[in-house]
């Protein structure tokens, strides 16, 4: 009798059972859920109407999904990059998003039926105008700049922005990419594992320019009222980057998962992106963008490889890069 009472008390104390709300499990990258990322606002926004409990699970999203296979608990993955969609698609674990992607606010056309963009930006080299008075005005000028102009980049084998640079150079220079890398290599102060180490070195004044995103100056303007950080806009074009969400085919909450996918492109969700994710919203009329995003200088040309092209170019482009830096 007492044992029964104890069991009941334990059951009542356990919050998951007490609330009895369905749980939507979202696998996401680490930065998403930090209090400075978009996660908390997304969770709050969705829970306001879904009558459910949105649970972020952070970590290495895709490796984990691939290892878990069909047994995964995830209902949604959030924050995949275009570099991994080919492998993610090949796993057959994902279901179509069911959204109309014909009038997105993206600089490219989006026709993927599985992976849905929720933000975007482009690769760019950021500089501080008080330290670099004459920044290169084009990619060609950057390559021809004196070697004491120092830049920091990220390793394409460890970082998505590093891989984007690889594809950027490939798309601008094609077969001439090895020569371009040979010119760029002496200016590369160092190659870091991730974006944050590079960016920290740049803000510390170690490097004159850093490989980052066209949207990076927005943070400095909006959060620090610092107008000195600028993206060098190149007429050759900038490489497109986007972060994607997808729902699992094996979800045990198909209606909730679909509701989440339906919500991503609504203004309610998209308004969170610019100032929490420091990137452009995927579908939002420009009039609804924060002023700081509207004022950012835009490249005239956006470069992008399709998934298959990028996958085919990945290894050869990496070999070119490795050779240039091993001279």
């Amino acid at each position, binding site marked *: 009798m007492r044992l029964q009472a104890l069991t009941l008390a334990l059951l009542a104390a356990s919050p998951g059972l007490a609330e009895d709300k369905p749980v939507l499990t979202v*696998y996401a990258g*680490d*930065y998403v*859920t*930090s*209090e*400075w*990322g978009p996660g908390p606002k997304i969770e709050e926004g969705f829970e306001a109407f879904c009558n459910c409990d949105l649970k*972020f*699970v*952070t*970590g*290495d999203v*895709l*490796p*984990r999904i*691939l*290892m*878990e296979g069909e*047994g995964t608990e995830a209902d949604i993955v959030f924050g995949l990059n275009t570099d991994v969609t080919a*492998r993610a698609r090949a796993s057959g674990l994902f279901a179509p998003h069911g959204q109309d992607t014909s009038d997105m606010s993206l600089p490219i056309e989006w026709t993927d039926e599985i992976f849905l963009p929720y933000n975007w930006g482009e690769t760019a080299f950021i500089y501080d105008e008080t330290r670099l008075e004459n920044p290169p005005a084009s990619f060609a000028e950057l390559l021809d700049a004196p070697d004491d102009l*120092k830049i920091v980049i990220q*390793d*394409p*084998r*460890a970082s998505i922005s590093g*891989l984007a640079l690889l594809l950027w150079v490939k798309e601008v220079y094609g077969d001439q990419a090895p020569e371009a890398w040979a010119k760029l*290599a002496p200016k*590369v*102060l*160092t*190659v*870091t*594992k991730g*974006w*944050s*180490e590079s*960016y*920290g*070195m740049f*803000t*510390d*004044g*170690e*490097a004159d320019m850093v490989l980052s995103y066209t949207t*990076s100056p927005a*943070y*400095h303007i909006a*959060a620090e009222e610092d107008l000195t950080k600028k993206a060098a806009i190149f007429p050759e074009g900038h490489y497109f980057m986007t972060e994607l969400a997808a729902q699992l085919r094996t979800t045990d909450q198909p209606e909730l998962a679909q509701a989440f996918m339906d919500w991503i492109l609504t203004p309610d969700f998209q308004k969170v992106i610019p100032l929490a994710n*420091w990137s452009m919203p995927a579908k939002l009329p420009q009039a609804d963008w924060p002023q700081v995003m509207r004022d950012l200088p835009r490249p005239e040309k956006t470069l992008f490889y399709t998934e298959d092209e990028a996958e085919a170019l990945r290894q050869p482009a990496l070999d070119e*890069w*490795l050779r240039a*830096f*091993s001279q």
Partner: protein
Amino acid sequence: MAAGIFAIRRDWGGGAVAAALAALILGTLAAVAWQARGLSGLGPWDWRAVWFTLWQAMLSASLSALLAIPVARALARRRFPGRALLVTLLGAPFILPVIVAIMGLISVFGRNGVLNDAFRAFGLPEITIYGWQGVILAHVFFNLPLSVRLILQGWQSIPSERFRLAASLDFAPADIARHLERPMLRAVLPGVWLAVFLVCLTSFAVALTLGGGPRATTVELAIYQAFRFDFDLGRAAMLGLIQIALCLAAMSLARWIAIPAAFGAGLDQPDQLTGPRGWRRITDTLAITLAAVFLLWPMLAVTMRGLPRIPALPADVWDAALRSVVMALISAALAITLSLVLALSVARSKSRLIEAAGMLPLVASPLVLGTGLFILLRGTLAPQSLALPVTIAINAIMALPFGLRALIPAARDLRADYGRLADSLDMQGLARLRLLTLPRLARPIGFAGGLAAALAMGDLGVITLFPSDQPTLPLKLYQLMNSYRMADASACAVLLMAISFALFWLFDRGGRLA
């Protein structure tokens, strides 16, 4: 007969811990290979990474060990105010979280660093930290403290009676070197070299950030690439296997070179030696000063920059700090227990296998270990509930080799000097532990516990696959950096550094006072 049974029973603990370690490290590797359905071959870039890894680890280890000798000797034979504090402080870089150390080194040796500012002011050419020289510099920065500590312990393990005897025989410094110091170094240096070599073998972030490009690719980075870029688990497992093979080769080499010194027991009388006079006083001062400047300046630079912003850190950074401290303390307790069991067992049985198992965590790739554990534990419990316990256990295991390097020699001396006496008194079990083992080994135990606590504190989490909604302090640091908040990140770095040092100091000091 009865004694034999007791011996077997007493050795059971060490053997079991060693077997569990080997099973964990080789088992996780096997799990990764199994998931990949076999090992895959390596490309030319992988082999370049293997060669670079070997080359830089050998150079870093040799430099660290060589440079540590004059510093350790000076610290061993000189007494001056603040010496104890300096010895503790000089140990600090070894337990510095990698990201903080890199920040510090860059602010001193970087392009915009203090040193280059000075060079520019005097019209001298600038130096660059980016390249293989930066990798070596950082590795010496990290490992000189460890080398100095281990060699200093070697010096202190020579009973002061021997030095007094040498003085009464009117030994010149050269004679002391020949009869006392060189035999001690012969016994200690191979272990020191090996420890540093193994640490540098699995280096990842240092080589990547300061290496200046893919020429400085290490095996651990190649493993990371195999996981993240290619999702080629077979190649990751193959590289992990190579890393372990390199470790075992280096260990047998060091075993073959090392010859144990036999100084016998002393009476633990405080030594009141003044050390040789004359020019040696100047070189000793120089050695201590240079080491102090090299090791302390980068940390000072980080502190100066981050300290003012600490009060402005958001509240959940403090929550993360508290969580990390609790995890570090549990890790340290676990590490002390495991390393004590192993060290006593090694001292009793002279088992090379147990000693080798104790060193294995040093070369296990954290990435392979984490992924292997994930594969093995998948389906048993919710990964979320495993995140913190697994992190604590892995941190304790990762710290074992360092604790063992200090504990094994001390346990051997204890066995050689007091073992027979204790046996003849039939002092066994808890009584022996309380009256003999713990008091005699208090110093290395404190050192081992301090290292384990500090290393656990600074660890970013070897197990990124195990998700957690309870971030640790190093993870918060990265989240701040990833959200452009570099100034807050540098304040967080100071906090992380301060807590790591405080934990180490508490254990180490406790051990020395006991």
